[in-house]
């Protein structure tokens, strides 16, 4: 699996390369600014791009903007954005095209190599990986949710939040200590309540997450 990395701090870039290679990824390019990242994505056409939000030369959200630009050029290009902090605002912008294959994680998540590479694979396969902190900040005040989300039962909302983190039905089942069939029943109920037409399951998952983050 081909990966392009954009990260300006040498230590972290180096660590990411070693981590990903240790888990069998192939790093085709590792760059340290937005312009080089665009060039690398164009020439290498990777399976996934891992981008730091803050990159030179502006040291603002250069990486995020480059990622969105790359997505506009190559629709559906899987992108995993890393950041020292997470903002719901940025999560929405990443998810806005509704195509999925988007991840948005705190940099701390690389501490757990297995989980991190798992998230990378999931995003490369077209799924989502939202940082639990994004979800937690949403949950902190979505008790009075209005609209379609208000129709969900507490359990269904729990399932949806785990879905937003990008977990599979099996992982959700393990987390909630229920059977996978029970989770499948919940997800089906969620799709129905959110008026998501039956299509391929992955896309519906993304749309459900979008509805969730879109409050």
């Amino acid at each position, binding site marked *: 699996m081909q990966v392009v990395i954009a990260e300006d701090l040498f230590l972290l870039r180096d660590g990411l390369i070693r981590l990903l290679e240790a888990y069998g990824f192939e790093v085709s390019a590792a760059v340290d600014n937005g312009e080089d990242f665009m060039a690398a994505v164009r020439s290498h056409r990777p399976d996934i791009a891992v981008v730091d939000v803050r990159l030179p030369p502006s040291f603002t959200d250069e990486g995020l903007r480059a990622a969105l630009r790359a997505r506009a050029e190559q629709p559906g290009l899987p992108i995993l954005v890393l950041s*020292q902090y997470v*903002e*719901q605002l940025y999560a929405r912008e990443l998810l806005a095209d509704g195509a999925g294959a988007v991840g948005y994680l*705190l940099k701390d998540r690389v*501490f757990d190599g297995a989980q991190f590479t798992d998230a990378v694979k999931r995003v490369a396969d077209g799924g989502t990986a939202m940082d639990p902190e994004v979800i937690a900040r949403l949950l902190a*005040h979505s008790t009075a949710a209005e609209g379609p989300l208000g129709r969900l039962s507490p359990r269904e909302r729990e399932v949806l939040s785990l879905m937003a983190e990008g977990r599979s039905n099996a992982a959700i089942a393990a987390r909630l200590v229920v059977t996978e069939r029970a989770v499948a029943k919940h997800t089906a109920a969620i799709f129905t309540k959110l008026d998501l037409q039956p299509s391929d399951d992955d896309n519906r998952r993304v749309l459900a997450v979008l509805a969730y983050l879109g409050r």
Partner: protein
Amino acid sequence: MTNGVAAGAREATGPRLRPGFPGRLLALGHALALFGLLLAGAVLLALLAAPVILAALGLGQFLKYQLNHGLAFDGQDARDLFALLLGLACCRLVLPAALLATRRLAMLTRRLSAQWCGVAIAAAYTPVPVPAGPARQRGRRRLGYQQRMSWLLNDVSTWRDVLWLVVNLIVGWVLLLAPVMMVGFGVVAFLVPGAAAVPGMDGVSRWATPPAFPGNTPTVLLAIGVALVALGLGTGPVALRGYGGLARLVLTPSREAELALRVEQLAQTRRETLDTGAAELRRIERDLHDGAQARLVAMGLTLDAAGRLIDTDPAAARALLYEARDASARALAELRDLVRGIHPPVLADRGLADAIRALALDSPLRVGVTGPLDGRLPAPVESAGYFAVSELLANVAKHSGAGAAEVDLRHSSGSLRITVSDDGAGGADPSRGTGLQGVARRVAAFDGVLVVSSPAGGPTVINLEVPCKLS
């Protein structure tokens, strides 16, 4: 009515005088009302002058008597002393109140001058000093007599106000009464008798007798009457504007007074800015000391222990390493929160509008963000605006009981304007609670103002205005 007098920032901002008959009649009414104010001013002037004159006379007589008669005390003497003491006592009792009343009257004159005469007049009073000493510790805002008097007497504007009372009494009434008198005289002395002489109108003849002068036929009387009334009505607005001009001449603060006030304001906001800056640094230092630093120390110890165990007990060493990893994640989380409190990254990335949108998303309320704000503001203003809105939204969530709030952002006429409104219970009072005061202080450092409108029962609307450039 053209606006020909001295142009500038202080030029007329009030509504133009309405043309036409009703407007002119209204001008006469305004002139009469201002005349009432003038009379009140005369009373105040008497209150101010009487005790001083009494005391001065008593002192003068007393000294004269002593000089003429040697140091002798008798009945004559006692009378002078009594006058002196009575004068001083009255000064003590009456002067501060009378001076403050004079100031109110001058402020009212300024307001009415802008509203009625179309002449805006600036004001520059020294702000009320903060009570010093024990009074301050008791949290009292009342000043002692000494402080109050020195505050009032050292303010040039006070003397300007008193001068206005005098000028008003000497010149002002002419401007105010001339048009009114012309109309009144025209009606009573000419129009009424003139009309009385017209056949069929003799009912009014009881009202007035025509003035005796050669050729006073009804036609002439009527003509003179109409001319006088027209003249009075015509000059009414002009005289009113002239009165406003006179008031401006006397009441406009000198450049020095304005600058002194400005210096005072700047010194105060600078002091407050430095204070809050220092307090903020102390908070950051404490947070780092108790949080991230402590965690890093603990991590060092854990890693050291893991190093010692790695050969003898690899399993325990691994557990310690994971522990160190988790500690580093917690330290990161704390640093993240700290950074958010100092300068939120999204503010640096995107500027005020998006940062406030991010804030709205994180708020437990439904918060709508509206208004055009493209481009970036100076970084300190963005920061102040962000934390002000953050505080205001937190207030809404905590106190108002509102379910939704609106934030409107725009930049117009050289100022950033932020409006935060909610549909809650209202009753927000900047004088209670430190939150709103903190916000006011924050924006005051940029010469900004905070205006709170929060009647009991709501809704609450808070306006922030900070002069700044948009780039």
